[in-house]
Structure formats: structure tokens, C-alpha cells
């Protein structure tokens, strides 16, 4: 009897919990100072705080100084305020906190992971890192050494080669013809050695209240977060300078470019123009991508055709990749030399089939269920929560969109997907970049990529 009552109680508690917790609560806050904050209050001992400095990424690197943003980001953790590198690291470790600063192509992102009980002490350190990093000659040399070493280490790495080659191909810089877009500029020994302390100090002007997003998830109240953010960003410049970057026009014609390297498995990247997050067809494109090559594990058309049926690849997948100035529908695959071009052929075939015929009703329903149903799984830890919320904000969403995503997905109809497939998927524009030594295949024309494209 007792066990039964306990069980019933448990079920009730769980259901009640479900009703209350199915939606993530997100508060939209603007502090008196003007900092825009999203707060997702949640239980648990871990607090995640993510700050996106929009536009302060590698795109701000001056000509001839590629790598500046990345070096700057690393230097900020080499001592701040009264603490040198070891002292700062030691202090953070003592607090069980993790602070990272990373420069991507477009943005610079600060991530703070701390236990609730150590949050205040951690944030005081973060303030020092943000406003008083010790940008000294010794730390510049140390960070430069590391980046030079990383570069040398990666030079012959096929994955690195692929990434570089694919990006350069995307911006139209193949065989060293055409202008070099900011996205295709990579650090070299020369550019890293050209960096000075003045260059580092110049980075601060790309940060400002008007381009900052702060996202917090943890056991905090609104007044606590406001106070924390006020303290952390007091004195922050109201306006950030912006670096101008052109939009990328992806190649109008598809191709298969090969960068020769003697490795048993050819690494393949492919892309065509994508659908931007702000486009009205975006959610339909997301659903379409789920069927095409994204979505649930091993359930996409590409996974079935290329991996399960063909056995050509262990990994194959697609996604919508959006940078501030480039939107791609992109994918990756890895296939041995003998079968790499068969994989390419199959990918093209699937692309054409879906462009012409859309997807089946069954596929659509399954992926809708998956995308909508798995959405809450991204909200189970503070870190996951801020990662996703920061991403939604970069897409220009509001707090209401956070919980509206499943509904937006479930509204997508087969006809809508069919139209988007017809309008957006273009197998003739699909560009393949391969690092490896793929065996030739009749029907596929391949062009060699000069290794100097990586210089």
C-alpha cells in the first residue's frame, strides 16, 4: 500500500514538474548601464555566463596581421590586474572556475563557467581580464610562440588543409586568383611575427555596449544578475568600432577540386549557398536539412545512401552554416581513395533527387518530431543553455522564440519543404573540395588545386 502511494505521488510530481518546466524561462533584461542580458534562472550548482562581442573577431585583424584577435584572446588570460599568468590560472583553479576567451571569424566570445558559491570571486577576476589584462612583451612572446608552434604543427594536417582549402574555394580564391576575403585570411609565420603590443591595445575599440550580448544561466535572481553585470562592465565604452567586411558571393558553378595528399582516406567538404536564419523559409530549410544530411543520428538521406547502403563513408553529414557575411549549406564526408568520387556522385544524386522531389511525408514527420522533441534536451545544463541562447540571439531572435521553436518546426508542411528544396538546393552549384588522392570516376570531372592555395 505504502509503495503504491509513493509511486502515485512520484508520477504526480513528475507530471506536475513537466507542466511547469517544459518551457525554459528566459528573462530579457537591460541594465541601467545599457547591457542587454538574457537570464535563464535554473537550479543546479553551475553558472554559465557567455558574452558575445559581436564583430570583434578575426574579421578585425588588419591587413598583414592575421591572427591578431586569436593572439589577443590568449594574451588576456596571461595575467590580469595584479596577477601574473600563473597566479591568475591558480586563482581560477582554486575557485573551480573555467574562463575562456575565443576569437571566431566574426565575433569574440567570453565564456565563464563557475560554481554558484564562487561566482562573485570569479566575476571579479573576469573583470580584470576584460579591462586590465596584462598585455606585456613577455606574454606576447609566449603566446606568439604558441601560435607559431600550432601553425607549424598543423601545416601538414589533412583536416587543416581541407578547412583552409574549402574556405578559400568558397570565397573564390582558388589557385591564387581573385581577391582574398577576410574569411580566407589565415595566420602565417609572417603575420604572427608582425604583431606588436600596440596592435593588441587596438583591439579594445571593437568592444562596446552596443555590440555586446550577455547570456546567463544559473541559480540567480534578476537583481543578482543586474548587479553582477553592472560590476563586471562598469566603464565599458558605449560604442564599438566596426570593421567592414564584404558579403561573400559563393561560386556560381559547382566543381570538384582536389588538393593532392597521399592519405588513405580522402577528406571531402562540400557546400552551396544556404538559407539565412532571418529568412522566412529558415525553419523549412532546417527541416529539409534534417532529412538531407543533418538531423538525427544516421537517419538522413545521405547517411542512408552514402553510409548504410554504399558503405562509402563512416561520417557524412550536412548543416546550415551561417557567418555574418556568408551563408552556406555545407557538409563533410570521409571516404577511402577508391570510393571517394563514388561518395561525391551519391551526394550529388541525393541532392538532385531532393531538389526535384522534396522529401517524403514520412521523412518529414519523423524529422519534425525529432527537431521539436529534442529541443528541450539542449536545456539540461547551464552551459548548454547559454550556448544555445547566445546562438539564437545572433540569429536576431527574441526571448519568445526560445520556446516557440518546436511549434515553428511542427508547422512546416511537405509542400513548403518541396518549394524550399526546389528554390534552394542546386546540385549544379554544389562545390566539392577534396584533400586526398581519389581514384578517377567516369562522369566526374576533377580539377587539381594548387598547394600554393594554402600559403
Amino acid at each position, binding site marked *: 500500500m505504502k509503495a503504491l502511494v509513493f509511486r502515485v505521488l512520484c508520477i504526480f510530481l*513528475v507530471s506536475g*514538474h513537466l507542466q511547469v518546466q517544459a518551457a525554459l524561462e528566459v528573462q530579457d533584461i537591460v541594465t541601467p548601464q545599457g547591457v542587454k542580458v538574457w537570464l535563464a534562472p535554473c537550479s543546479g*550548482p553551475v553558472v554559465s555566463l557567455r558574452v558575445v562581442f559581436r564583430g570583434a573577431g*578575426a574579421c578585425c585583424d588588419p591587413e598583414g596581421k592575421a591572427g591578431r584577435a586569436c593572439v589577443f*584572446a590568449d594574451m588576456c588570460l596571461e595575467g590580469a590586474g595584479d596577477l601574473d599568468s600563473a597566479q591568475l590560472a591558480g586563482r581560477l*583553479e*582554486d575557485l*573551480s572556475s573555467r574562463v575562456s576567451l575565443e*576569437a*571566431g*571569424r*566574426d*565575433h569574440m*566570445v567570453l565564456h565563464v563557467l563557475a*560554481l554558484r558559491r564562487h561566482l562573485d570571486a570569479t566575476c571579479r577576476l573576469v573583470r580584470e581580464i576584460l579591462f586590465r589584462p596584462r598585455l606585456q612583451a613577455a606574454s606576447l612572446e*609566449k603566446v606568439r*610562440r*604558441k*601560435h607559431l*608552434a*600550432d601553425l*607549424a*604543427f*598543423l601545416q*601538414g*594536417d*589533412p583536416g587543416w588543409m*581541407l*578547412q583552409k582549402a574549402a574556405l578559400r574555394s568558397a570565397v573564390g580564391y582558388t589557385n591564387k586568383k581573385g581577391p582574398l576575403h577576410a574569411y580566407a585570411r589565415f595566420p602565417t609565420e609572417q603575420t604572427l611575427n608582425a604583431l606588436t603590443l600596440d596592435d593588441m591595445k587596438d583591439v579594445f575599440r571593437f568592444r562596446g555596449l552596443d555590440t555586446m550580448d550577455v547570456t546567463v544561466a544559473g541559480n540567480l535572481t534578476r537583481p543578482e544578475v543586474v548587479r553582477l553585470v553592472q560590476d563586471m562592465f562598469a566603464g565599458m565604452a558605449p560604442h564599438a568600432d566596426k570593421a567592414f567586411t564584404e558579403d561573400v558571393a559563393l561560386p556560381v558553378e559547382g566543381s570538384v577540386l582536389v588538393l593532392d595528399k597521399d*592519405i*588513405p*582516406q580522402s577528406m571531402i567538404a562540400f557546400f552551396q549557398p544556404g538559407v539565412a*536564419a532571418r529568412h522566412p523559409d529558415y525553419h523549412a530549410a*532546417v527541416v529539409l536539412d*534534417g532529412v538531407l544530411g543533418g*538531423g*538525427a*543520428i544516421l537517419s538522413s538521406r545521405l547517411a542512408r545512401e552514402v553510409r548504410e547502403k554504399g*558503405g562509402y563513408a*563512416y*561520417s557524412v553529414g550536412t*548543416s*546550415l*552554416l*551561417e557567418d555574418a557575411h556568408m551563408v552556406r549549406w555545407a557538409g563533410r564526408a*570521409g571516404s*577511402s581513395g577508391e570510393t571517394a568520387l563514388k561518395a561525391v556522385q551519391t551526394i550529388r544524386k541525393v541532392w538532385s533527387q531532393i531538389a526535384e522531389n522534396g522529401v517524403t511525408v514520412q521523412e518529414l514527420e*519523423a524529422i519534425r*518530431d*525529432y*527537431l521539436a522533441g529534442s529541443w*528541450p*534536451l*539542449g536545456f539540461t*545544463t*547551464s552551459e548548454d543553455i547559454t*550556448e*544555445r541562447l*547566445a*546562438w539564437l540571439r545572433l540569429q536576431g531572435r527574441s526571448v519568445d522564440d526560445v520556446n516557440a521553436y518546436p511549434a515553428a518546426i511542427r508547422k512546416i508542411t511537405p509542400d513548403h519543404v518541396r518549394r524550399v528544396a526546389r528554390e534552394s538546393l542546386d546540385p549544379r552549384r554544389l562545390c566539392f573540395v577534396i584533400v586526398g588522392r581519389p581514384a578517377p570516376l567516369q562522369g566526374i570531372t576533377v580539377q587539381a588545386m594548387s598547394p600554393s592555395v594554402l600559403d
Partner: protein
Amino acid sequence: MAKLQHCPLDSGGWFMNPRSGIMTKGPCGEMVNTADLKSVDREVMGVQVPPRAPLRTMFFLAGLLFLAGWARAGGAAFLEPQGCTLKNGMQVVVIGNHRSPVVCHSVWYKVGSADEDPSRPLGLAHFCEHMMFRGTKANPGQAFKDAMQRMGAEHNAFTSHDCTAYHQMAGVEHLETLMALEADRMLNLQVNLDDVATESKVVAEERRMRYENRHASQLDEKAWSCLFAHHPYRFPVIGWAEDIRQYTPGLVRMFYKKWYQPANAILVVAGDVTLDQVRTLAEKHYGCLPSAPPCRRKRLVEPPSHAASVRLVKTTDQTRLPDLALYWRTPAVTSKETLKTAAALQVVCRVVGQGRTSRLYRALVEQHKLASTVGMNYHELRDAGVVELSVSPVAGVSAEALEKAVDEVLGDLARNPVTAAELASVRARLLGELDYVRDSLEKSVITVGLTLAADLGLDVLESWPEAIGRVSLADVAEASRILVNRTERVVAVLEPAGGDAPDQAIKSARKDQKQASKKKGKAA
């Protein structure tokens, strides 16, 4: 390849959590729509074997040791799991975490690559794991994966030396369906020739991706086969390329029938559930399954290495700088009592090589400016522990110079052992990090699963904070001896092809040699 992970240039790996949104960590920080994307590297069914040292963590007890820490003041609780055993011998463990209405459901089989029959093709445990996704009678073909999609569930699996695990994450209302599906494929897998043929090709591609394409991984694979000369940990989990070509339905069925039994399985569930709820459902879906008695694991014992160290050198065109890795074997944890050694070793590793305040980092990166990164990793397998040290040089520094510098720091441990202050600080850090494990459903499940799959009890797991709390300076000094010992380790050097870097150490070594031979000449 600690380097690749920390490379600020964000190299070609895709490190993404497919559930959450993005944020950088895509190549060069691109914005990645991971609500749709499956990371190429993460879309794994099988071996999570990193290219180089420090990443093996997740799938070993290291998950436990690496992140181990203290629970609360004076308390000894870690994850507070609750367990029971079903009639047919299947173990059940539940970790309550009521933060979200989500559940992480997993089934762990106490079989890994080290349990394979070495007279048969290797990598069967991993291959069997792949085949588990190819369908049963009740759920043929894509049915299992379709069902996962419909539930909005994330799922995957992995194989390691000691265990094979199948795990899903879904809304708690789907727990029963997850159990039904997992219970179905526990005993009813269908293995046919076509599927074996195709999946063999897939696994061959996986091997190419992880090993044949990456010289650093090949070196790591070789290093393990030297570290364990006899014990089956010497085999790569995925098997050798020749093995992968020899799989047949008969081999798979034989393996499956032997090892995939309820009495050989552990159910670990974490999330918005209670033991009673899970037990009720488990009895309904798993408890009714017939079981053979649990399999006995018989493995060759690794004999002492007779104080012979091994040095491996591999030349590669995949890098322009050398890379250095060192490996040590450590005793296994077999009980609460032997946990003490593991705790002490964890402290030593933290002091010596983990993080920017470690001795190796301060000496090699800061002081002597020889290295750009230092990574140290310690994890326990069922029959042994392994410590891996990875050091990457800055330009112009040879592997020999690095090795010499590493030996100086390690040798110094004997003269200047871990101090009371270092011990206190590291202890507090290890304990403080425990909350991160408890906060994550996945980490909780993996920590529990790895422990039990290594044939340890929950009491051992739960006594970890206490073990850390009790480590003494004497324990640490004892544990340090393993690292100080230069005669029982494997050194693996990755050399860039074409040209050695000018380097002081080599020059002075040559000078010493010249002087020594001059003296000899004189004496003669």
C-alpha cells in the same frame, strides 16, 4: 594532440554538442546550426579514440578520477546512486536529477575489446556495437532509429577496452519506450550477410579516419601495444585493418550470444526519475528476459616489464614540429582500499602535468620556453591504470630536448616531492570540481557505468571523495615513484620528415661525446 583541441585557429575538427546551439568551436569559430548539425567527429557509433594522448578521458574511469572532487563539507557522497538487481541478474542504478524533465537511459555490457578471443578477428566488440543498429525482428531496418527520431531522442553508443554502452537522452515520458527498444535488441538482434558486408566497409572507413589518416594516432596505437605487451589492452579497440575484413555473421552471432545477456548488463538511468519508477519499468522490460549466467572475463596478466623502457619514433609529413608523448602503466583499482593509490596518483598528475600551475607547464612553457603545450591524463581501466603525458615543442626545439627537460622535472619529484601546500590546494580543486559531474546527466551516467563495467561496486565510486580527502604526503610520495621511474615507460616521438631543428641540447650532447671520445683515445 592537446594542441588541436586548444588551437586558437580552431582546426578542422568539429567539436559540437548536437543538442545545444553552436557557438564557435566550429572551424575558425563559424556559427554552426547544431540544432541540425551532426558533428562529423561526434557522429560516432563506436570507438572514441583520440588522435593523441589526453582525450581518452571520457570513456574511462578517468571520467571519475579526472573530475573527481568533494561533495559537501564532511560528507562522503559523490553521486548518491541507488541500485538494485533484477531477478535475472541485471544490475540497475538510478541517479536522481530533477532539474529538467529529461532522462538519460543507458545499458552497459560488461564486454570490451579486451575480452575478445585473440584467435578470432579483433574488434568484434566494436563491430557488434555497430551491428546493434541494424535491426531486430520486431524492429527491423530503420525502425529503431525512426523510433528515436519520433521521440525526439538523442542516442549513440561506444565501445571501449572494458565495456560497450548504448545510451539515449529523451523526455522522461519516453523512458519506457527506450527500455522496450533496448531490451529488444539485447537478445533479438538479426545479423545478416549484406549488413555485415556493408558495415565492415563503414568500420574500415572509421579506422581510416581515426588511424590510417593520422600518423599521430598510429604512433599512439603502437605505444599502447608496447605499454601492454601481453594484456589485451594492447589491441586497438577498433581492431586492425585485416581483422575488419574478416567479419562474418557467424562470428558476430557467437560474440553476441555469449556476451549480450541480462546478467552481463547494467542499466544506468539518470534524470527526473526515482529508483522505484525505474525498477518497475525495468522489471517489466528487462527483468522478464531469460539470462545465461554472467560471463567470466579471462584475460592474460601483464607480466612485469623487466625494467625495459621502449622508445618509438615515427617520421611524418603531417607536421613540421616534433611531438613527444610518454606512457606509464599503474596498478589497477580493485577495491575501496586500492582506491587510495589512484587518488594519490591523481594528485601527483595534477601537480606535475595538468593545467598552467603544474610543474611541467611552469618549467617547460614558462621558464625554459621549450614547449607550447603540456597535457597529462590519468585514467583507470579494469586491469590497470595509464598515465599519458603529451608535450608539444615550440619551433626550433627537438624531441630530445623536450624529453631531457621532462626528465629533469620528473626526476626532481624524488628530491622535491609534492609539498603539503601543493597537496592541500590540489585536493581542494579536485573536490570542488565534483559539482560539474553531478550537474550533468551524461557525466553522471558515464561515471557510474564505467565503474560498474570495470567490476567495481558503487561503494567504491562513492568513497572517491573520501579517498581524495585522505591522501597523505606519504601516499603521494609513493605514487610519484611510478613517474620518476624512467625504466618502465614508453616514449613516443613524432618526427617531422626532412630536417632536424637546430637545438642546443643536441649540440651540447655532441660536444660531450667528442670530449668523451678524446679522453678515451688518450687513455688507450
